[in-house]
């Protein structure tokens, strides 16, 4: 048996002020580490939840997103009659031809312009997106210049609230409804009649086709069929996959940014831990000599000091994770880098992020403590005892 764990623990407790100060430094780094991971997680969750696995998005081949896509009217007619498309209770195919356009609107706060997604919808668009729910007002009437705004757009953009009027595509559009689509990307869009929008924007082609699969297992054969059809220049993706691809670049960017920030900050925190642990060793030279004289081996001394700095790191980790968990209360809106449109999402703490953060804090503690611990273990017994 080695030196009891309580020895390491109580030494941290005895000098609690130093412990808290050092742990706070590490906590700050863990906070940054956890917060960026939570941000990336929240972004992906938002975008992935936007899609449904049974839905298929058809866009032009090699178009990265709906905004860059165009589907000709004759092609869309062919696609509408495909047998893989589910049929609704009214006998019509569960399929919507949509138009997606980016426009520039001013934010209520600060009057700053930002891109917003305008989606021209068909009759079945709502049926295909069960997450979209009207919370205020009513649905826009087909064939009119009426629109409804996603909740976060209504709140944050000028003219987008219920009863207000937005001007774009040289027309005034009355907001007759506000919808909520949970934490999905739709909450950051404005929806209106697709034909009206195509006229107003003078766009002769649709952006995308969305439909429900008759049988979810039919996806692969459907994809092979349409992508191999010489009359068509489209590609098909499951809606979940489509939104995951959309979020990939941004999430990766956030994660890399997080890593870079974390590495830079952690250098400072590790140096802090090293200084604290060197001081702890220097203050306990006689104690170390005594333990060695009593028969404890160098490796026991090493272990006790490394444990102490691991615990110190863990304290920092807990502080950082607790602080980061409060970030869940905040909703962030940022540019979706794929479509350059506004997207609202929250920091999301997962179990994976939690343990990664705590592990990371202990790694910092370990790196900070390893040199001081070796100094303690290397001491000569007689010299350590003479230090009194």
């Amino acid at each position, binding site marked *: 048996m080695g030196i009891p764990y309580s020895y390491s623990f109580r030494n941290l407790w005895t000098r609690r002020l130093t412990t808290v100060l050092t742990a706070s430094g590490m906590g700050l780094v863990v906070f940054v580490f956890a917060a960026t991971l939570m941000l990336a997680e929240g972004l992906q969750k938002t975008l992935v939840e936007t899609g449904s696995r049974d839905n298929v998005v058809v866009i032009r081949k090699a178009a990265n997103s709906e905004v860059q896509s165009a589907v000709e009217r004759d092609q869309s007619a062919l696609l509408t009659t495909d047998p893989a498309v589910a049929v609704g209770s009214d006998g019509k195919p569960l399929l919507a031809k949509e138009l997606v356009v980016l426009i520039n609107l001013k934010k209520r706060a600060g009057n700053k312009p930002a891109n917003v997604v305008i989606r021209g919808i068909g009759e079945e668009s709502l049926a295909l997106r069960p997450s979209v729910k009207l919370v205020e007002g009513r649905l826009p009437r087909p064939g009119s210049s009426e629109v409804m705004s996603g909740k976060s757009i209504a709140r944050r953009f000028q003219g987008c609230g219920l009863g207000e009027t937005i001007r774009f595509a040289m027309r005034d559009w009355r907001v007759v409804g506000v919808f909520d689509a949970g934490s999905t990307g739709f909450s950051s869009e404005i929806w209106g009649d697709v034909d009206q929008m195509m006229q107003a924007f003078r766009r002769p082609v649709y952006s995308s086709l969305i439909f429900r699969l008759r049988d979810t297992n039919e996806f692969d054969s459907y994809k092979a069929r349409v992508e191999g059809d010489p009359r068509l220049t489209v590609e098909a993706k499951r809606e979940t996959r489509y939104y995951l691809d959309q979020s990939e670049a941004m999430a990766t960017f956030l994660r890399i940014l997080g890593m870079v920030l974390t590495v830079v900050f952690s250098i400072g925190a590790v140096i802090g831990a090293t200084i604290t642990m060197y001081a702890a060793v220097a203050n306990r030279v006689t104690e170390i000599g005594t333990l060695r*004289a009593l028969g404890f081996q160098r490796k026991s001394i090493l272990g006790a000091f490394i444990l102490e700095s691991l615990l110190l790191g863990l304290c920092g980790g807990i502080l950082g994770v607790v602080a980061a968990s409060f970030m869940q209360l905040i909703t962030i809106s940022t540019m979706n880098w794929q479509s350059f449109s506004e997207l609202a999402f929250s920091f999301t703490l997962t179990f994976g992020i939690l343990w990664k953060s705590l592990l990371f804090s202990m790694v910092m503690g370990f790196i900070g403590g390893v040199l001081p611990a070796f100094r303690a273990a290397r001491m000569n017994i007689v010299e350590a005892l003479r230090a009194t």
Partner: protein
Amino acid sequence: MELESSHPPIVSIRNLSKSYRRGNQVIPVLSGISFDIARGEFLALMGPSGSGKSTLLNLIAGIDSADQGTIEIGGVEISRLSENELAHWRALSVGFIFQFYNLIPVLTAFENVELPLLLTPLKRAERREHVVAALSVVGLSDRMDHYPGQLSGGQQQRVAIARAIVTDPDILVADEPTGDLDRASAEEILLLMDRLVHSSNKTIIMVTHDPRAAEKAHLIRHLEKGELSET
């Protein structure tokens, strides 16, 4: 007495030399010392400051190594042991008593006394028994849960003595054990050590400057200029 001297000595030192090097300068501390210590002896080592008393004591306790010569304790030639073997040997065979007690401040009296037992295969309950027994020998059963900072100097030294005897070692080494204590506490500590020699048959080697402390010992040896003499 006759009977005792026929037993082999517990400590047997032959031709022991030790010098320190400071830069180019060689400082001889011990030059070819040979002597025996009988089992159950209470020996006081005296001598002027810097004469090498602590050095000799550290060599006997197995925390320092000699340049030359052999030290045999309880039949084990400790100068031949490896560092880890020596640490193991110390845990079982030597009890340390220091001038400044050297208790671990974050551990209670009980836990301080228990420390050496953590290096033995004893179970938790057995360890507890030994600790309780050792603390009752030094008369501190009621202070088990006190931290060193809550005890007087004399009490701390008694806890240290309990820690030194808890593994029932052959020898106890004490470097100025009363050096930091007032007269009354010093008397108490010396009395306790004397009792350990008589009733528990411990062998004690004590370095001291204090002639009154040395008086309590059975035998006083003087160290001067690297040589040992008997009085």
